[in-house]
């Protein structure tokens, strides 16, 4: 029984990790290529979820909803990049933090205005109802398994795009040396818009996928945003590989911590106190992890530039 539960918790951790990776990949690319801190990334996640919920309830098709989430988030991302971000690349991080904080306020209120204050509900598509039997021992939610597989496929897709295609090569070149890349005749501002839209699309996609497990509401992007920042910082800002490793670590530590810390502490402490302390420690575990990693490796696990 214990082993089955552990396996299930590990799968849940993996699912959280994969979703975090979709968020963190965009953040770390945007930081690595443009040197920009984008707090509004959580808003793109929210926009994706809302677009998916609206289109899915409108047309009755979850697939169309997913397409809409990617398209809307990418369009919003491109719009934000052209309208606001371009002016911020040369500014210091403080200006970037504030401007993107302002964008959070603007987009949250715009969504509230468009969709009202009540959360929307997004149904899991019918073919993913119920549970599936894994390895003959574990009943696991079909939809969560679908998310894990889809997320892993997307991760492979990003890897191939960045490492094996011409456009990916240009993006990597832009991250390594912006001026040199521009001097070689590559339209760097087009690359920037593209990277931003790509990151936004990934965030919107993640929002739509998670929206069916949780509810779709205004503040949904913010907890995920901060977790994604933790992932990016742990992995090393600018590194896709770091984002993947960091996301899996954070997903696992968070899920397993919540599942097992109270029980572990019960071995040495009074049960009631152990439960309280365990729950409190589990909720801060990933921040502790990040701080410890930063103390020993101030540039994260996989520093992007040397």
């Amino acid at each position, binding site marked *: 029984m214990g082993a089955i539960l552990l396996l299930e918790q590990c799968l849940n951790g993996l699912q959280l990790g994969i979703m975090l990776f979709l968020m963190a990949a965009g953040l770390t690319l945007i930081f690595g290529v443009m040197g920009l*801190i984008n707090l509004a990334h959580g808003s793109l996640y929210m926009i994706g979820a809302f677009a998916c919920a609206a289109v899915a309830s409108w047309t009755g098709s979850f697939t169309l909803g997913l397409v809409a989430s990617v398209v809307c988030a990418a369009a919003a991302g491109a719009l934000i990049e052209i309208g606001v971000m371009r002016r911020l690349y040369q500014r210091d*991080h403080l200006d970037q933090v*504030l401007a993107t904080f302002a964008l959070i306020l603007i987009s949250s*209120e*715009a969504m509230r*205005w468009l969709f009202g204050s009540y959360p929307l509900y997004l149904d899991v598509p019918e073919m993913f109802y119920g549970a599936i039997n894994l390895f003959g021992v574990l009943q696991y939610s079909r939809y969560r398994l679908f998310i894990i597989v889809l997320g892993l496929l997307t991760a492979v897709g990003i890897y191939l795009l960045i490492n094996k295609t011409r456009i990916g090569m240009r993006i990597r070149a832009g991250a390594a040396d912006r001026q040199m890349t521009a001097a070689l005749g590559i339209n760097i501002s087009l690359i920037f818009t593209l990277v931003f839209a790509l990151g936004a699309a990934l965030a919107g996609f993640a929002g739509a996928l998670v929206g069916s497990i949780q509810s779709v509401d205004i503040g949904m992007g913010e907890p995920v945003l901060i977790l994604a920042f933790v992932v990016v910082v742990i992995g090393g800002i600018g590194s896709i590989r770091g984002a993947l490793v960091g996301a899996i670590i954070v997903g696992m530590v968070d899920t397993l911590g919540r599942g097992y810390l109270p029980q572990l502490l019960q071995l040495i402490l009074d049960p009631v106190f152990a439960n309280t302390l365990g729950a409190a420690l589990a*909720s801060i575990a990933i921040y502790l992890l990040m*701080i410890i990693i*930063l103390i020993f490796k101030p540039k994260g696990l996989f520093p992007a530039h040397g």
Partner: protein
Amino acid sequence: MSEKYLNRIMIALLVGLPWLAHWLDEPYYVSLATRIAILALAGVGLNLALGLGGMVSFGHAAFFGIGGYVTGILASHALNYEPIISGFMGTTQMLIIWPLAMLIAAVVALFIGLLSLRTSGVYFIMITLAFAQMIYYFSISWPTYGGEDGLPIYMRNGFPGLNTLQPIQFFMICCTLLLITLWGVSRLQNSRFGNALQALRQNETRVTSIGINPLGIKLTAFVISATITALAGSLFADLNRFVSPTMFSWHTSGEIMIFVILGGLGRLYGPLAGAGLFILCEALLGGWTEYWQFFLGLLLLGVVLFARGGLIGLLSREQKNA
């Protein structure tokens, strides 16, 4: 209009208008002015680290919240006659609460600063955010002092010789503390220490090369900045007679940062102008549309993109030396 002249007008308005409201029997406006004074105080704290020292702390909500929670915890123990530790029953005296709140915040800030200042740039922003988030989630999941529901303070804490329940008297306390702090920070700014701090922001290598230890200066500024913000948090708890984990949330950190930027980064009276503008926006726009934060966002975006000197820079047309 020169910046000095502008500052005097702001102080005159802050001290004068609440008395007018009090005289017209409009306590709502008195408490609005109290909020401005308290939030400006929090901003003055952050401005010391951010504006003078160039340390982009995205975690000052931690200190604001610590100030609030120390106040709430001390008061609730005193009101319930439950000792905190044997022999100490808590207190409802502001004069004891303030130093304790500031002391605890200073100790926490020393710890956070020591670890965070090992990093710089984005990593510093993120690690200060992470520390604040840690305290935020801890305060939500630790049930002793209300957890997610927060902790009410049934009676506003007392100050010898004053009736703090009367809005105008509580306002005078907050306003006086703000003015004293502004005076103190202006002295600090022009002292040897203040010069070293500002020089560090501009060029750390040069300052180090003339034999000044950057960590010591920065850490001291960070701790002082945190204690000022904690004092504001303590007053804020007394104003609302309620503390909740929201005080620790990263939105609070963002808002304190907004006060500093809206008013004008690194300007002594910037946080006062910023907090005033913020609260007036909330009161005026909030009465007109429930989506007022949309317009606040636009305003902030406009200031960051086009008016880098903030409100004071815009009005005084004086450039601040970078």
